[in-house]
């Protein structure tokens, strides 16, 4: 019992000194901050970051790959996607209207999973705040602008 008290006292002083040393090292040698100076310093998004659904543009055709099938609208658990298909040319289906109400989107990614042409892609952006509810509804042009351009796939080399 006696020796325990003695040992405990010594131990407590040693452990306090150890803790103070750890914080002193952190204090005097500038360790990299774990926090970011946000608006000036954007966070590095990880590979495979899943943002809101967008329609990237194929630079060769100037259009997205959407064929207006409406699978995403049916699959969406929040029912926030509205697709109206342009039926003028039955051989070339494209969306006439495509709106996503991001204010209710829960970023589940089901729309992108179900898209038969893989036209819907997640955006690598997270700064979606705006001042009105209407501003949260993104139409076809917005989605195509946000999606950016698809990387140009190298053309298949013809074997001569």
């Amino acid at each position, binding site marked *: 019992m006696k020796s325990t008290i003695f040992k405990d006292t010594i131990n407590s002083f040693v452990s*306090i000194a150890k*803790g*103070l040393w*750890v*914080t*002193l090292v*952190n*204090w005097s040698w*500038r*360790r*990299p*901050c*774990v*926090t970011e*100076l946000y608006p000036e310093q954007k966070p590095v998004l990880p590979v495979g970051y899943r943002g809101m659904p967008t329609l990237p543009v194929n630079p060769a055709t100037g259009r997205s790959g959407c064929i207006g099938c409406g699978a995403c609208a049916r699959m969406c658990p929040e029912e926030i996607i509205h697709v109206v298909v342009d039926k003028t040319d039955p051989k070339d289906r494209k969306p006439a209207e495509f709106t996503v109400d991001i204010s209710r989107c829960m970023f589940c990614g089901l729309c992108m999973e179900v898209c038969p042409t893989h036209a819907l892609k997640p955006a690598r952006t997270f700064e979606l705040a705006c001042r009105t509810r209407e501003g949260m509804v993104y139409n076809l042009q917005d989605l195509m602008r946000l999606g950016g351009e698809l990387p140009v796939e190298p053309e298949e080399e013809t074997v001569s």
Partner: protein
Amino acid sequence: MELDLLIKLGLELGKIVVIAIVVLIFMMVAVLYMVLKLRWVIARIQSRLGPNRTGPWGVLQTAADALKLFQKEDIIPCGADKWLFTIAPAIVFIPAYLVYVVVPFGSGLTAQSLNVGIIYLSAISSISVIGIIVAGWASNNKWSLLGAFRGASQLIAYEVPTILAMIIPVLITGSLDLNEIVSSQGGGIWHWNLFHLSGWPMLPLAFLMLIIAGLAEINVAPFDIMEAESELVAGFNTEYSGMKFALFFLAEFAESFTLSAIVVTLFLGGYQPPLHILGGQLTGLAFSAVSLFWFMFKCWLMVLFIMWVRSTLPRVRVDQLMNLSWKALIPAGLVNLLLTGAYVVFWMPK
């Protein structure tokens, strides 16, 4: 004849008012900067950035906070004892302000040098317990009351080891006057009480005890059970807002500066420069200025040490806190006092 007396009285009063205002302004500025520095230090230690938005590098952060507190509505909760609720911040603040009267900021820079300086210091600073109990009771809130109870038991428990530790340098020096204690430590770092060879094992032990008990006395981190956020919301000042809260806050940080000043005065040579060539050969006003610098420098190091400790150690439990005081610090302090007394009577070179 009578007019002469009146003029003298007026001059004396004017002097007192000017000193009081200067000390008050010093206290405000010191606290404003200490709060900011504390936030920076803790941020650095926790690998964060800390305040950096308000003004360049965030230097105006605490000034903005103070301004915000001035604007806040002064809420008195229903069921609270209005009168006691209102005077409690003053009871806490005034002692924290009054102790600055005897602190020797530099050679000849003491507001009023008392020959019982240390007794005055410990007596005045223990008044704030009353304010804390009054605040806790008047708030009509169980968390406040529990925090006040804890505060009372803690402050009373740690008053004893603080005084036992402060008595040791007094015995060695043979004076209760803070100025005399400081001037006895002049001439270099090896004459400071902490490093002085006379009473070698007793003085460093007293230094350690004074720091431990002082940290408990000013309620900072390892011993801040009285405002333990996770248990008591904010302790005795839960219900306070606006200026009254600002007064509590001011008093808390002013006390932490006071502790640094006491430790520096008693053990680290007060305003004496660490080496004779660093200002010791000067006299008069020049030495006053240099000694003011050295006092502030040492106090600042001490304040940084307190911030370092409070951002490192976790909070102790209530029973651990009481055990530390009654079972460890007070017996050690009594033994230390006995040894020092024997040393002073029998062995100390006259």
